[in-house]
């Protein structure tokens, strides 16, 4: 009758040792990484959307005070975008109407292509925009 020495090449536990670790290393990236990447990408897009909202709201306020599409309005929007980490050069800004009389509604729309970046898969542009409407306070 032969005796198996624990840890020797004949010990069946030795062949199974580390199997769980190998399985975890293979499986965990397939399950956890997509969830993690999804949360991070979504969070990044939400951040972009919140910055757009803040920029459009600030721009609408500035447009109400100016009663028109002025450089000051665009500078205000640019400052909000920059403060939120977005590139103002990549944003499209429209003020409608470009000149508004006292009491007339004036709307400001800020649009940008958000970036959904997934490692090893690529980047996708996600069009996003925000519009705020306020009332001109200026008589031209």
């Amino acid at each position, binding site marked *: 009758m032969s005796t198996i020495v624990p840890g020797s090449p004949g010990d069946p536990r030795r*062949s*199974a040792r580390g199997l769980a670790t190998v*399985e975890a290393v293979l499986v965990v990236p397939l399950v956890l990484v997509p969830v993690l990447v999804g949360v991070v990408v979504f969070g990044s897009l939400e951040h972009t959307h919140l910055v757009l909202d803040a920029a459009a*709201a600030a721009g609408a306020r500035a447009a109400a005070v100016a009663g028109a599409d002025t450089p000051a309005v665009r500078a205000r929007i640019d400052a909000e975008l920059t403060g939120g980490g977005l590139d103002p050069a990549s944003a499209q800004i429209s003020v409608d109407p470009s000149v508004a009389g006292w009491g007339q509604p004036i709307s400001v729309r800020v649009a940008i292509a958000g970036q959904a970046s997934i490692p090893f898969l690529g980047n996708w542009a996600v069009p996003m925009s925000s519009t705020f409407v306020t*009332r001109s306070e200026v008589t031209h």
Partner: protein
Amino acid sequence: MSGRRDSERGQIAVYAILLFPLLMLVLVLVLAVGTLEDLRTRIGAELDTAALTATQALDVQGLAAGQPPRLVPGEADALAREYVARNIAASGDLVAESPASIAAGAQVVVTNGSGVDPLTGVAVTAPTVSIRVEVPARVPLLSLVGIGPVVTLTVTGSAAART
């Protein structure tokens, strides 16, 4: 001994397969709650904008006569509702009710002079407009986690006239 080890082989994969739907559910919940919070923040900013617009309804004749600034309540109320509707109309397709209907059902409080704003609970010292709305938001992802696709958000905004 060897048989027991063989039966344990692949356990991690089984756990992962069982865990996968649960993790996807968590991801869906994160997306749905994130979308709702984004909408809540946006509507809050819209209400602030509408309230600020409503503070244009100052009693101009009173000001010209040297009286302290005060808002004309009826005019401020109408302006607040008009701009709530205009801004919610620009919110996108997550809102499950017409902007006009939401604006009509909004609570608008115009406070002149000092006091406590009944909607925000904040002490005010200048003419203030406060607005509270209930907005049904449609988030289809919520159906996947067993919550109805429409959730009602209650949001408050306010603004004071600079004097």
